[in-house]
């Protein structure tokens, strides 16, 4: 596949601070064939509540494995995902 794939997630629409909990939704996580996305607690959130953190977000981690099928863009109910190359 030519060029680098760039996947961006608009954290103003999904994730900590947006009122949408990616742990409850997880549409992009489940639709992705090669499991490119990572669900994780936001860096620095641990100081506030280490045992049951509420601040979570999704990061596209394994970008080179993306097959550019665009299913994550369609699946996201908040229209927060965009894929470019």
């Amino acid at each position, binding site marked *: 596949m030519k060029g*680098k794939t760039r996947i961006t997630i608009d954290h103003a629409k999904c994730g900590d601070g947006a009122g949408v909990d*990616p*742990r409850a*939704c*997880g549409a992009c*996580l*489940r639709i992705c064939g*090669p*499991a490119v*996305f*990572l*669900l*994780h*607690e936001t*860096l620095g959130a*641990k100081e506030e509540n*280490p*045992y*049951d953190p509420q601040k979570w977000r999704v*990061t*596209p*981690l*394994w*970008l*080179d*494995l993306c097959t550019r099928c665009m299913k994550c863009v369609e699946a996201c109910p908040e229209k927060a995902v965009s894929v470019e190359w």
Partner: protein
Amino acid sequence: MCDLCMKHGAGGKWYLNAEHYSNAIAEKYNLRDFLMEQYKNFEQISVRKVHGFNAVGMGYKLKMPIIGRIVKHTAEKMLHSTKPPTNPFRAEGHIGQIVPIEDAIAILETCAAEPIIEKNCMCRYMSRGIKEACCINFGVMSEIVDRLPRFIPEKDKYFLTRQQAVDRFTEHNKKGYIGSIWFGPFPYINNLCSCASPECAGIRPRVDFGIKSIYKAEYIVDFNPDACTGCRACVAVCQFKAIAYDHSLRRITVDYGKCYGCGVCRHACKQKALYLKPRDEFPGFEREY
């Protein structure tokens, strides 16, 4: 016998050396606090920077001419580390090996330290958002998981007896999940996982990026060509694409180089045509861990 067995196996396989499961090791390296800190923030490890690099876009980083080789070398050095662990935000000394069901049962019956617990697979949670109880933990690790709500399965009984643990593992293995045993961190063994590709954070670096994060098993699968009917049930369950169907022979072929020796394909075969043989009996593949 792999390198780990030579160094830490006491004459056998490293994961059947009961010494590595003892609480005394956990106390010696003060792993109670270390593991608590590590698992509190487990999902963050991939996005945290180590020596200025994190795992975001790992494939692209590895393709860079010189930097790629340095990244790979550094990652392997960290995973294979045998020094006392220092930083809980890195996967130091976290090296594993694939085990077939027979060895996993031997681990659960003879080696694993009490209490035995089953927990939600964190890899599946962080890459699929799905909670599925399929990892088995031993000893000190069980106490830690018991304090982290997101890893606790949504049922009353998650502390298991040895027999229950064997039953649970067998159930997952028959479903097609690969058994794997982990140092976490070296020299303490506390995890017996039932993994699936591509979610597993331990198998992915090996399969997709060639970083030795997990060793292949001590066995390779072989088959009886006369018994094979060509039903292709085993082709569907193999997660490493080691088994292929040959249209002209009307039976399967096995690529020994790709086989990781998990033995999961045996459950799919109704003819019992597949069986595991020790890796030593395959010339040329003895050292291919």
